[in-house]
Structure formats: C-alpha cells, structure tokens
C-alpha cells in the first residue's frame, strides 16, 4: 500500500516536472519581452536540475543549476542590459506557417525515430566503468570518466571555455577607466552586506565541491561555477581587478587550468605512457591537481565573461 502510493506520487511528480518544463520552454521562446524570456529560461534551468535529480544524476543536476540556470542566466541578463540601448525589439517577421509545421513534424519524426530505435534495456558503459574504477585514482565514477577515462574531452572543454573568452574579449571594447565606472555605479548597502557574508561561504563551498568530487557528486566545473558566482557578485558590488593584476597575472590565471591539464597530460608520456594515461599510484593526486587548477580558471573565465570587457590596465581606483 505505502510503496504503491509512493510510486504513484513520484509518477505524478515526474509528470508535473515534464509538463512544467515543456510550458516553461515554450513561454521562454514565445516571450516577446526579452527580460521575461530570460527569467523563464532561468526557471526552466532550475526545474531541469530537479528533473536530473529525479533521473539519479546529481552531478548533472548540480552543473545545470550552477552553470545552466545560474551563470548562463547572469550572462544573458548582463547582455540584455548592454543591448537595451541599441535594440528596440522589432516585431519578428513570421514565415509561412505551413513551412513551419512541416519542419516541426519532420523534427518530431526524426527525434521520435531516434528515441524509438534506442534499445529497451541498454547495457551502457556503467559496468565497464565500474570494473575499471580501481585504475582511476578516484572513487566517484563520474569524476573517473571526466578526468581519467575520457580526460581528453574535458581537456578540450577547458580549451573551448578559453576560446570563448578570447572571442568575447576581441569583440568587446576595453573597459572604461575606473573613475568613469565609479560614477555610474551606486551599490546598495544591502548588496555589500550580502557580499561580505556570502563571499567566504562561496569560496568554502567551491573548495568543498572540488574536494568531494573524488568520491561524490562535485568537481571542477561545479566548483568553478560557484567561484564564478562569487566573482559575479563582486563585480556587481563594483569591485574591479586592480590594474597591476589585470595584466599578465590575470592571463596566467585564465590559462592555468588548460595549461596544467596539458602539462600533466604530456608529462606522463615521459614515463612511456600514453597521453593522459596517469600512473596508477599518483592518479588521484594528479586529478586533484588538474581539478584545482581547472576550478580556479573556470571561475575566473566565467566571471570575466560576465564582465564582458577586458579589464583595463590603468591605475587602480
């Protein structure tokens, strides 16, 4: 009786999650007001994180909530605030509804076929991963896959993040000098109080997520995005990098993660191993080293993406 009721309750919860996701996605896309669209997108990300929890994927849920909803939302909002003056939303030109429907049906057919052709009971790679866990140097299968078995993918992801920042910097104008900025910015004392209380906690949480990644959900990307959130909060409080840190120390921090990854990946080859094939005895330490550097760089890169401007090297305020 009790088990059946729990089952039914969970089914209802899942149904509610799916319906909410579909509605939020539709409203977010259909919103003519960009601000409303972004807020709905953030809500969509948070509900999606819940859906990942229901799918027993807490790692993905953490990443979705922190990066998908949180930081992407912040990036979209800051972009919108920069767009506001230059664009006044011309009404979208509607293409023929017949064409639209044909495309929609085709897309649905392809996706439906893809889902239907999946095997009912997939073996997946879970058993393979489980049997190799002893060789990974960590105890959490997701971290083992991301940093060891498929380390190459994560290495390239780090490089992509760096490329994104380089692209953003090459498009954006240099930051205004610090004097101009101070005039434009009046920070509420409430935000400053929040800043003082939350920053130490956020740094602590980032360190915890990094450390716990070895044996439980967590890791560099989640930790890095918490660090980036601290950076975003600092930027919102009007804190800027000092001029003497905005030059090569900043650039060093940005490439540290990728550089460390490449260095470790290449260094193990000296001992005759393949690229990224960590020696078993030190695998855990090497992974922690890479993840610590990656966390720092991810946090810095995402915060810099939020500010959207190359910090000026002028005298500090």
């Amino acid at each position, binding site marked *: 009786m009790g088990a059946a009721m729990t089952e039914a309750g969970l089914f209802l919860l899942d149904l509610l999650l799916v319906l909410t996701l579909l509605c939020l996605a539709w409203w977010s896309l259909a919103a003519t007001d960009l601000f409303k669209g972004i807020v709905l997108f953030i809500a969509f990300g948070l509900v999606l994180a819940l859906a990942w929890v229901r799918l027993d994927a807490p790692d993905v849920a953490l990443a979705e909530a922190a990066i998908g909803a949180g930081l992407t939302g912040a990036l979209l909002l800051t972009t919108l605030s920069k767009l506001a003056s230059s664009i006044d939303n011309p009404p979208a030109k509607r293409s023929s509804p017949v064409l639209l429907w044909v495309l929609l049906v085709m897309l649905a057919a392809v996706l439906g076929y893809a889902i239907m052709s999946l095997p009912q009971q997939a073996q997946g790679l879970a058993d393979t991963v489980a049997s190799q866990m002893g060789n990974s140097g960590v105890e959490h299968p997701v971290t083992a896959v991301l940093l060891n078995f498929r380390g190459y993918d994560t290495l390239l992801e780090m490089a992509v993040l760096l490329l994104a920042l380089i692209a953003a910097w090459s498009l954006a104008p240099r930051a205004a000098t610090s004097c101009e900025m101070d005039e434009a910015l009046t920070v*509420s004392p*409430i*935000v400053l*109080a*929040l800043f003082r*209380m*939350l920053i130490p*906690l956020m740094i602590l949480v980032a360190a915890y997520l990094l450390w716990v990644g070895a044996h439980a959900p967590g890791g560099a990307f989640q930790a890095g995005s918490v660090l980036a959130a601290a950076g975003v909060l600092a930027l919102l409080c009007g804190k800027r990098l000092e001029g003497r840190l905005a030059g090569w120390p900043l650039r060093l921090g940005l490439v540290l993660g990728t550089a460390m990854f490449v260095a470790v990946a290449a260094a193990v080859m000296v001992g005759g191993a393949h690229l990224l094939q960590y020696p078993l005895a030190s695998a855990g330490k090497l992974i922690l080293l890479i993840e610590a550097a990656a966390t720092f760089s991810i946090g810095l890169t995402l915060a810099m993406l939020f500010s959207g401007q190359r910090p000026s090297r002028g005298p500090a305020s």
Partner: protein
Amino acid sequence: MWNSLSIVLIMIGMVFFIAGTLGLLRFPDVYTRLHALTKADNVGLGFLVAGLMLQADSLTTALLLLLIWVLVMLAGAGAGQLVAQAALQRQHPVAKSQDDGRGHD
C-alpha cells in the same frame, strides 16, 4: 510521534507557500507581492525545514538543512530589498487601498 509532528510542520509550511503563491498572483502591486513571496520563502521554508530536520538521519543532515534555510533567508531578504529598490527607482505605482481607489479613480 516525531513523524506526526514532522507532517504537521510540513503541512503548515505548505499553507504558507500556498498563501504566498496566491498573494504573488493576486496582490495589486510589486511591493505587496514581494511581501507575499518573501513571507512564503522565510516562514514557509522554515516550517518545511523544521519538519524535514525531524526526518534527518544524522545531525549533519539536520544542520545542513538549517543552513539552507538561513541562506535562502539571506538571499531572499537581499533580493527582496533589491527588487523593491528597483521598483521604487522606476516609480512603480503603489496600489491604493480599496476605499481610496473607489473614491478617486
């Protein structure tokens, strides 16, 4: 005994959330809606967390739940003030009380 207390606490929490949602949908202006929303967040979540703490396996879990409540209150209080400030700056109208509204509009 603990179970029933936990259920009662969670139910009270849910009442606050439902009232908060109703207020968010039905109240006339930004400021009163904020009031409804933050009330649900602070008090409703407080009852929920208290109910869940009774169900926690370990003291750590219970304390973590408590920490979540404190953090949500911090964030809620901060965000509530910010939204109200932004609304004031943009001169969002304050809804008049109903008698007033009938008299003048």
